[in-house]
Each structure stands twice: as structure tokens, then as C-alpha cells.
């Protein structure tokens, strides 16, 4: 294999990793603040994709891009207020079971409403085509997708680092009791974090609907690698999750590139195993007292 192709595979792998980020960051945020392992996160991704399909005839892809994530985020608020809220103080295994059930209910609901066969949806005409970055020719749609994803991730980082909202959320991750003692109720923050995290999963659904198969179980396909990313990156660490997503994409892409495609999925689990062996809190995982 030429060095040129290897360079392409490395770049493509890194880009691939960015898609996981939209899912993984929300997953990490909801877990760090509420202690909820949200196995239903993939279901919201699927709902985002199906909403794109439903809304596009009326709003176009551009309209769905704005509306669908908002609708999914509102669903997130409802789920947070009615279900998540009851599990913040309990054993994470209980919330894990609850969200696992929720994921199955959501998947079956999609199957009952839209049918089990996959549905068709294509890239809108104005986003098709190829771009040449030097001698690297790449899909224009993916470049746009990358731009949107990076904007979201940067906005989220600024929100968490530079605003008073972000300061409370970060404090809540470290020590919710102290935040309470200072007279700040975490409840509205929890709802907002759920809306943000779940809304981003919905956004990922919108963005990937034109290039992935849209079917009821599509959430399951993305939740596992997203989880691996969170585990590798380390809880509570924004940049850890970012680095892990890129690493996972890179490992998968390079495995395919060098002719070991059959092991490309297995390789990310092996990577997770190695990270857990040497760094049990993940690459950049912070010490969070209540999870130790």
C-alpha cells in the first residue's frame, strides 16, 4: 500500500471518529453529571434520523437539520424529568436497566410506526459531489458534516468552560452536595444537560441519515462504539473523549487500510482493554470521588 493511501486512511479514520463524538460527548456528560448510563442514547440518534425522513418533505434537509434535533432535545427533557430524575441517587445498575428497557421500547416503537425494512433517504442535491484537498479527493457532504460536528463540539466546550452555566455543571460533576449547600439547585442544569446531550444524538441522526441505512435498530449500531469511546476517553474529561473518538476512528480506518478489515471492530475492543489495563480511569479520566 502506498504512503499516499495510508495518509488518506489516517485522515479518513480521524474524520470517522468525529461522528462518534456527537454521540459520545452527550453520553459522557449525562453520566458525569447524573450518574446515568444512558443506553437509550442510540435510540435518540435513530429518532433523529427518522424525523429527518418525516420532516424533509415539508422543511427540506436544511429545515430538518434545525427542527429535528430540537424535537429530540425536548424528548430528552421529558425523559429526564419523568425517568432519569428518579435514578440520580441510586445504583447506576438500576438506571442502566431502565435505559436498556427504554432503548428497546423506542426501537420497537419505530418498528411499529415505520416498519422493519430500511427506508430510503439521499443526500440533498446541493450537498453532493467531491472536493479535492490537494490530491486527496473526498466527499463534499462529509466535509460539511465535519464542519458542523466541529462547530458543535467547540460550542459545547465554550459553554462548559466559559459560562457560568458551565461552571455550575462542572462543579456538579465533582461535588453535587457542595453545589446544593451553596444554594444552587442542580435540577434545571440536569434537564439542560439531558437536552444538550440527547439533542446532539438527534443531530447525529440527522447528519448520518443521508449516508447510513435508516432502520429501527440503527441506534444499536452506534451506541456500542460510542460507549467504547467514552470508556477509553475517561469520564468527566471533555478532551479525553475527543481524543478517544479520534483514536477509535483511526484504529478502525488503519486496520481496514492495511488489510485487516475483519479485525477492525475487534481492534477497538482490544484498544479499550489495553487502556483499561493500564489506565483504569481512561486516557484522561478525572478522579470523581462519588464514582470511585
Amino acid at each position: 500500500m502506498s504512503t499516499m493511501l495510508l495518509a488518506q486512511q489516517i485522515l479518513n479514520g480521524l474524520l470517522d471518529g468525529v461522528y462518534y463524538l456527537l454521540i459520545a460527548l452527550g453520553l459522557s456528560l449525562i453520566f458525569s453529571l447524573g450518574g446515568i448510563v444512558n443506553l437509550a442514547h442510540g435510540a435518540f440518534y435513530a429518532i433523529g434520523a427518522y424525523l429527518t425522513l418525516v420532516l424533509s418533505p415539508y422543511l427540506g434537509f436544511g429545515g430538518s437539520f434545525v427542527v429535528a434535533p430540537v424535537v429530540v432535545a425536548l424528548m430528552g427533557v421529558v425523559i429526564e424529568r419523568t425517568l432519569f430524575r428518579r435514578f440520580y441517587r441510586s445504583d447506576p445498575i438500576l438506571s442502566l436497566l431502565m435505559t436498556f428497557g427504554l432503548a428497546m421500547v423506542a426501537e420497537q416503537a419505530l418498528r411499529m410506526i415505520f416498519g422493519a425494512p430500511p427506508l430510503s433517504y439521499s443526500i440533498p442535491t446541493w450537498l453532493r459531489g467531491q472536493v479535492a484537498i490537494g490530491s486527496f479527493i473526498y466527499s463534499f457532504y462529509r466535509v460539511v458534516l465535519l464542519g458542523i460536528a466541529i462547530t458543535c463540539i467547540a460550542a459545547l466546550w465554550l459553554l462548559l468552560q466559559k459560562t457560568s452555566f458551565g461552571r455550575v455543571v462542572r462543579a456538579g460533576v465533582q461535588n453535587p452536595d457542595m453545589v446544593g449547600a451553596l444554594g444552587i439547585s442542580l435540577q434545571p442544569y440536569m434537564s439542560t444537560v439531558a437536552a444538550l446531550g440527547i439533542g446532539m444524538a438527534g443531530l447525529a441522526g440527522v447528519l448520518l441519515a443521508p449516508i447510513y441505512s435508516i432502520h429501527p435498530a440503527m441506534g444499536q449500531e452506534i451506541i456500542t462504539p460510542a460507549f467504547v469511546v467514552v470508556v477509553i476517553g475517561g469520564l468527566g474529561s471533555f478532551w479525553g473523549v475527543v481524543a478517544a473518538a479520534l483514536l477509535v476512528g483511526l484504529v478502525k480506518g488503519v486496520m481496514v487500510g492495511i488489510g485487516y478489515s475483519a479485525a477492525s471492530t475487534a481492534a477497538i475492543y482490544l484498544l479499550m482493554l489495553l487502556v483499561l489495563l493500564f489506565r483504569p480511569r481512561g486516557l484522561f479520566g478525572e478522579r470523581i470521588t462519588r464514582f470511585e
Partner: protein
Amino acid sequence: MSNNNQFTRRSLLKTAGGIALVSGISAPAILRAQTADVIKIGHLTPRTGFLGPLGEYAAMAADLAVEEINAAGGMMGRKVELLKEDSVNPQTASTKAERMIERDKVACIIGEISSASCLTIAQVASRTKTLFINTGGNSDALRGKDCQRYMFHVESQNSMYVKTVGRSFLRDGLVKGKKWYSLTADYAFGHDLLKVSKRFMEANGGNFAGDDLVPTDATDFSAYLLKIREAKPDLVVINLAGNQVTNFLKQYAEFGLTFPVGGFGFDTALAWAAGKGNFVGTWPVVWHHLLETPGSKAFVTAFTNKYKKPPENQAWGDYVAVKIVAKTINDLKSVESPKIIEHFEKGAKFDVLKTREGYFRASDHQMMHEMYAVTALPADKIKNQWDIFASSPAVPAANEDLEIIAATKEENSCTFPS
């Protein structure tokens, strides 16, 4: 002591009388419920996972067939009841098959799509001497080294798919001296198909520029597409399965690659999901909804009326299999699996909604029937979301033996375990 004895004797009499009374009145009623009123048929197919979308069509078609059979008087004058379950994976498939046979006393089991699950169901079928008709598992091994006396195949084997579409590739000059790049689903079906397609390629003077195994849960094909672009093959060969095919087609169009595409395994639902403009290439099918035979037209109309969309090829398999079982049971006046098998092995012919009738080949229990190659229509010639391809005439042609596309004894030999 004596009192005790008397008491015991009396209660014994009462119990005996009770048993006599109960067995005299209720037992025949139970018997009637189990065997006289209804004939149960087990239907197992994946309803979830990457083959789930196809399983949905299988279940819809089996329901339709049973409805039509019951409307026409059932089997041997009895009503047919279909027990449908999600087969999930090979382990679950075998557990459920066992339960259907031993607890529910089904007459036979119909269905399946995964070749791996076919194998485990066939083992249960052989042990319990119950007929299993495979309607969707393609691998040659199921008709070769893993063949079982109690398993029959309405679904075509991989060799039939390869030889059917291979004719189109040979005609278009895409084989001799050409290089192919193949992507293969990394499980039993894919491995088997890759083996058969390599055999075809070697026999016809072509070679592989590359072949990659793709994990069944892969959704992103960009890394593979970059490799294909670099390799510049004469034909991209898709030996993928389920949602993989849709994902690949959507992303192949996204990356703007224009090498000819072909596949050795195909399901219409996946092409419908890829959609106009994304669906490209030439593919083999066991049946499709645009066939002009009276049987196919009636089936398509009935299915479309009931479910508001046309049937895809997997629907054909389960529909035809249920109809074959009904006809056989009515002709033989028996639900005994050994008798049905003997009838099949004698070469009984069945209407399979095509121009010619089909029959099970005794040597490996594969249904011999016509197949087709379909080619994607250009986007500007597509009128609706369903009719997105044009079909070849039936393969083999009317003057050829039906067995010409099937694996020969040398290619794939079956010895039924005794």
C-alpha cells in the same frame, strides 16, 4: 387398620372412577384440539438485527399464504395455525425450534435467512425427524458438507446466484482478464459466497485486485471506498448482507465512484432502501415483483392489497414454501415428515410462480427453479420507488436444464448423515 383399609379402597375407587370419567369425556376433546382441528406450522426467521428487515417480509408473506390456505379449506380440511418467532441468532434459533417441535407439536418448520441459524435448526430437525424448509439461507455448505435429510431449500444456493449473474458479467466482458474487488460479509454466508465467486473467477480467467472481509456491524464504508478507488478494479463485487448493502450503495454514490458494481447476493428491500440514484449495478435474484407470470401477478396483488407495498424476494420464499407444504399435505393426506420428504425426493413438481415448475433435487434437497439478473435503471428512467430495475429473462433459458446453474457434485457434494 381395617377402617383405614376401607377408606383407602373407597378413595381409590373414587379416584379411579374420576379418572375414567375425565378421560372418557375430556381426553378426546384435548386430542381434537391438538391434532384434529388445527395443523400447526412453525415459522422462524430473524426479526431483529441486520437481517431483521428481510425477516419482516418473510413473516408477512407466510401470514398471507396461511390466510389463503385457510380460505381455501386448510390442510386436509383442518385449519392451519402459524407460530411465528424471532430466531435472533443460531443458539436461540435452535432452542426455539426445539420448543416448537416438542411442546407445540408443529408439523414442520419453515423460514430462516441466516445460514448459520439454518445449520442449528437443521440439527434439531434431524434429531426430531421433523421437516425444515429453508427459505433464505444461501450458503452452499448447507447443501454440501452440512446437508441434512430433513432440510430442504426453497432459497437458491450461492452457486446458483453466482452462475446466474455470472452470465451477465461474462456477456458484458467483465470477467476474462479482468480484475475484481470484492467486499464480503464476515460470517458463514459471506465466506461461502466468496469461495464460490473465486471458483467462478478462476474458471473464467479473471482475478481479484483485492478482497476485504467486512464485520457484520460495520456501517461506515469510507475506508473501503478509498481502497477501491486506489485499486481501480473493473468490477466491484458485493458479497455483503442485510443493511451492509444499503450502507455500501449510499456511500458508493456519495463518494462518486463509477466502477461497475455487481453482487452475488441481493435483496430487493435493500435496493429500495438505498433508493433512486444510489442503487447501481447488476445483481442476481431468486424472484422479483415485476415478473409477468400469472402466479407472481396474483401474489404481488394480494400482498400489495394487504400490506400497501409490494413484496420483496424474501417474501416469495416463505410464501412459496408454505404453499408447497400445504399442497403436499393435501395430496398425501398426511402430516408425517418422513412421508413428505419421500414425496419431495421423488421429484414432485410445484408451482413456484415462475414460467416453469420447480422441484427439489434429490441429491442435495435444493429447489431447482428459474432465477433472474436485475440491473439498476438510470435515475431518469425510474417512475416510482419500487420499480427501480430491469430484469433479464429467466436463467436458465427455456431450452436449458434447470440444474445447469446449480453446483455440480464435484463442486459441492452432499452425503446425508444416516
